[in-house]
Each structure stands twice: as C-alpha cells, then as structure tokens.
C-alpha cells in the first residue's frame, strides 16, 4: 500500500425521520504519509462526515453502507487494516483512534471535558495507548503541553478547560491529539472559532509539529486561505462528492470545476479595494433530503447543458492533467474540455 489511508467508493447515509440523507457519495481519497490533504467545501458537503467515518465516530443514525477505508499497517509485513469492518467500540478501533489517527475539533470548549483537568485528559490517552505509570503519564502530559507552546505547562496541567482562553484550549486539544504520536492528524476546522491573530499562532504550531513529528494531515475547512497555506493536495467537495482534486497549485491557479471557480471568485481578497463587486454563485445549497438528479451542482451552474447535466448519473471523476481530476461534463473523457 503506497498511501497511509486509501478510501474507495465510500457511501455514508443518515436515516432520519424526515428521510434519508446521502451525506457521502462514492468518495475516493488517498492520504500519503507526511503530506497534508486539504478538504474544502461548504456546510453539508460531507467533509466532516468523511473524517468521522475514518474514525468510526459517526452520529448514531449515520451508517457506512458501502466502500472501504484502508489504513496502512505500522509494520509493512502485515496486511492493511480495513476500518469499515471493525466494530466501532472494539479493541482494534480504539487502538487506532488516538493511536494511529487523531482528530482535533472546531470547538475546543465543547470537545474538552469540563469536569476533568486538561492534564488528566491527556494522561488518559497516554495510559490507554502506552504502558505508563501515572507519574510517567503526567510527565508526558507536561512535556506535550510545552511542545504545543502552553506557557507554565507544569501549572496548566492541573487547569480545567473553563480556566483557559480559546487559543490555549485549542493548544491543549492538539496536545491531547498528538500525545501518542498518531500517523494521521485530522484537523476539522481547527481555527474557525479563533481570532485571526490566534489562528496564525495555531496554524504555525500545526505546521511546525507536522514537520517535527512527521505526520500526515487531513485539514478540513471552508476557508480557502487556510487551505492555500497549509495543504499539499486539495479535494473540493460538494453535496457529498469530490468534484475536483489536485495539487494546491492546480486547484488555486488552474481550477476546472465551475464550483471551484465560483468559490475562488466569490471570496473577497485583501488588497482588492472596495470598488469590486464580488462574483457569487447563484442560488443556495439544495435541501439535503432531495439531491438534484444528474450533476449535483447543475441547478447553480452557469455552464449547465440541458439534458446532459440535469439527468442520468453524476459525472465521474476524469483526469485533466497529471494528478488533477474533475467530475464535470464540461471535461469529457476523450481529452480537451472547455476552459
């Protein structure tokens, strides 16, 4: 297996009272070791659900109904681990969670326990995954807090999450995620709830730790600026599908899919002044219970072709350049598509 994680044709559905939501549809994704995959999309595009499926922490009504998620073994002699076949609460999955794959969440206030000190929460993870005495685990917790730049770590280890600011809480979350040297860190909107100057601190920290510890990373965000500065490869998602994927350079400088183009045009850019009218994508995200037929983006697409885009199956991903794929009827299989 070349990559650390290989996801193939992943389908996740939510069975709710109001109907069925096709949250993730046929997603293929590769994350190579030591690289950063940026996953970008708007709310409801399935980016967080894909990550949660990898950790088997889907909400109760979410089910993986097809596809595979394979994790490369630590020992290359062994077989890849098929995550979709493991029991979510089983011993193997618990060893992967935190041990091989860790996740940091958007809201550090709600994802830290209010009744345990941050030190105890880090120690819990250390003692679950490694053989360590309480004292060793505590030393390890202090060491981790120092690593993520928490000042006065030996005192903060006994602090509760409400005693810390948003930036420090996010640092503690990162310390907890990294204390067992995971091979993949999933960062789900890690800086969205933070102020810009604190966001810069946390992005710098994540960048530094990734280099020092040699991890792969999956950076999930709606912020194209964060993606441009942190990712090597980018996957653009819309309504549970990857509509375009490529290197960060290709996605930002040679975007192909009308949705990617629209997203890039609709963000205000600093330094462009106040005269410019923003290009916007018309319409809104459709009702999650009723996905449009054909290409999911066609109701909002200015290039839609009658009876091509609005019927049949969604367009498959096709290669437009080395390492650059797009799922759009404008780029047919036989080569040159429209610009």
């Amino acid at each position, binding site marked *: 297996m070349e990559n650390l994680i290989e996801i193939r044709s992943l389908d996740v559905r939510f069975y709710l009272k109001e109907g069925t939501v096709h949250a993730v549809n046929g997603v293929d994704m590769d994350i190579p070791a030591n690289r950063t995959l940026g996953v970008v999309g708007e709310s409801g595009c399935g980016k967080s659900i894909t990550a949660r499926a990898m950790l088997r922490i889907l909400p109760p009504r979410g089910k993986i109904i097809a596809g595979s998620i394979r994790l490369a073994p630590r020992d290359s002699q062994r077989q890849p681990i098929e995550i979709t076949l493991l029991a979510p609460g089983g011993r193997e999955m618990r060893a992967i969670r935190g041990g091989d794959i860790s996740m940091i969440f958007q809201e550090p206030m709600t994802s830290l326990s209010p009744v345990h000190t941050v030190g105890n929460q880090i120690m819990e993870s250390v003692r679950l995954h490694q053989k360590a005495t309480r004292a060793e685990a505590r030393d390890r917790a202090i060491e981790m807090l120092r690593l993520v730049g928490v000042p006065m770590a030996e005192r903060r280890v006994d602090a509760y999450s409400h005693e810390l600011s948003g930036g420090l809480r996010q640092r503690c979350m990162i310390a907890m995620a990294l204390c067992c040297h995971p091979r993949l860190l999933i960062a789900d909107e890690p800086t969205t709830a933070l102020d810009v100057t604190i966001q810069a601190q946390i992005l710098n920290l994540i960048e530094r730790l990734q280099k020092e510890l040699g991890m792969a990373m999956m950076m999930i965000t709606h912020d194209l600026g964060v993606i441009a500065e942190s990712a090597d490869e980018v996957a653009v998602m819309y309504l549970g599908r990857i509509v375009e994927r490529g290197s960060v350079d290709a996605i930002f400088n040679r975007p192909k899919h009308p949705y990617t183009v629209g997203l890039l045009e609709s963000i205000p850019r600093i330094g462009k002044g106040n005269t410019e009218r923003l290009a916007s*994508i018309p319409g809104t995200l459709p009702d999650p219970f009723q996905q449009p037929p054909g290409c999911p983006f066609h109701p909002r697409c200015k290039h839609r072709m009658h009876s091509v885009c609005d019927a049949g199956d969604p367009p498959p991903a096709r290669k437009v350049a080395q390492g650059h794929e797009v799922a759009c009827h404008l780029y047919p299989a036989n080569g040159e598509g429209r610009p």
Partner: protein
Amino acid sequence: MNAALLKVQGLTKFFPITTGLFRRTAGGIKAVDNVSFEIAEGETLGLVGESGCGKTTTGRLILRLIDRTAGEMQFNLGERGIDLGTLSRDELRRFRKHMQLIFQDPFSSLNPRMTVLDIIAEPLRAHKYGNRAEIEDRVRWLTQAVGLQVEYLRRYPHAFSGGQRQRICIARALVLNPKLVICDEPVSALDVSVQAQILNLLKDLQRELGLTYLFIAHDLSVVENISARVAVMYAGRIVEMAATSELFHHPRHPYTEALMNALPKPEPGARTGRIVLPGEVADPSNLPPGCAFHPRCRYARDGCREATPKLRALGHAHLCACHRAEEIELGGV
C-alpha cells in the same frame, strides 16, 4: 464628502465587575474607551477588531440598547441634530425607526413561530405604519428588493437556508426606511458562496436607498470589500482609522499590520513569513499600562509601557494611536 449623519465623540462604556453579597464593585471593564468617529451620509464605516475589542458594544451603545457611561452621540436628521444619549424612552422608541441593526446569526434572530410576512411587518405595526394593505404592499416590495420570492411570505423561518434568512433579517431592518443600519458581523455565519451574495445585496441596497452603514466585522477582507473608511479597534480603543485603500496599503499601527499579515491568503506560495503576534488579546479587566498593545508589539520601546498613545492625525485623514508611528516602516498589502 456628504455631511456627517452620525457623530460620536468620546464614547465610553464601563462595565463594573461586582462581587459578594452586596454587589461591591471590585473593578471593571472599559469595553469602549473614548471612541470618536463620524459617518457621512451614504458612507460605510467598517469597524474591525478581534473578539472582546468593543466593536459590538460600540454598535449597541449607538442604538441605545445599552447606556453609555460617557460621551456624545449626535444623529443629524436633515437640519436637526439629535443627541441620542439624552432621548427619553418614548422619544427613543419613536426615533429607532431611523437606525436599525442586522445581527450575525440569522438562525437565532428570527422568531420560529412567526411567518416571514409577520416578521418583516412587525416593525411597521409597532410604528403604526398605515393600514393592512399598505403594510402588505411595503413588505412585498421589500421582499423583492432583498431578492426573495413573494410566495415565501407565508412560510416560517425554518424553511429557509442561512443566506435566505439573512435576507429576511435585512428586509426587517430596512422596512421602516432607516437612515443608519448597523451591521454586526452580517456574513460571518454564512457559507462562502452565500457571503458574496449578501455583501453584493448590501451594496446594491445602499446605492438604491441611500443607506449609511456601520459595518462591524472581524474579517478584514470582508470589511475592505464594503467599507469606504475603516476603524481598527483594540482593547476598547480605536487604534487606527483611515480611508480603506490608505489603511490597507499603508497601515501605520503595528496591530493593523499584524492583523492583515495574519489573514491566510487564498494564493498558494504567496506567504513570505508570517508575523505571529505573541500572547493573546489584552484582558480588558486588567489592561497593561501604557499602550495596551505593547506586550504583543514587536516595535515596542520603553516609552510604550508608560504613556497611553492618543489617536492623532498623520497626513491625509489618517488617524493612528501609536507612539512610534513616524519612526517605523510597516508593510501593507
């Protein structure tokens, strides 16, 4: 430049911190400290800063949703200058039709049990605007003006997406034909593709209806896109204020420089070194002495720890509160 619609002078808000059984005052927070600015009729002033800097409190003080500790707020309505701070409750209620507010979160600011028609018509009814038919005409006209279909008027807010809800909020704010609209983070809860629609809509409505905006936001690129002038706040004070392009291309305050630099740019490889401010936003209940920004400032000298810098004019309508503004060279965008 048109005449000033709103003139704010020395606006200050002090929130006491009380402790114990007898609510003894044990200190306080200067949420807004000696803030002065003017907004010309038809202009947009952007107010930008990080959480806790006092930008929202400033907006709420102007609307008299909370009462000021000190300072003057003069609203010029035609020939009349009205002192907002001294209006009585009744006068204030009648006057509020001239100034309205758009909130950040369109999910919590609409009553789920009212139809869209009732939501938009409520201000008209409260201000006794005409009869039923007139009210409905006005609501219909405005619904179309904000880009919603008239058929939606009988529906309830839950049936709408975030962007559509924000359009309803905008219609509600504009239904009384206000002069001044205070937009408090109107697009930060929206998806990127919808954010652009709402920014464009706010600009179009401003042109058509001659609105004046105080646009409060934390996102510099959004503020730049909509504002004619921008004021940057830190720890309750305005630290820099200038015309938009002047501020973005030639910032004079180190905090403004750092804010602009910290913003991730959607251009891979564009970053040439990140200015990372150490520490966190100053604690407003325990401000550092001298310039509140000095513990995080890479240009700070001993003098910055002693005296609080005043907001002073530097060249063309550019105000800056930094002791070293003349000496240091800062990078803009």
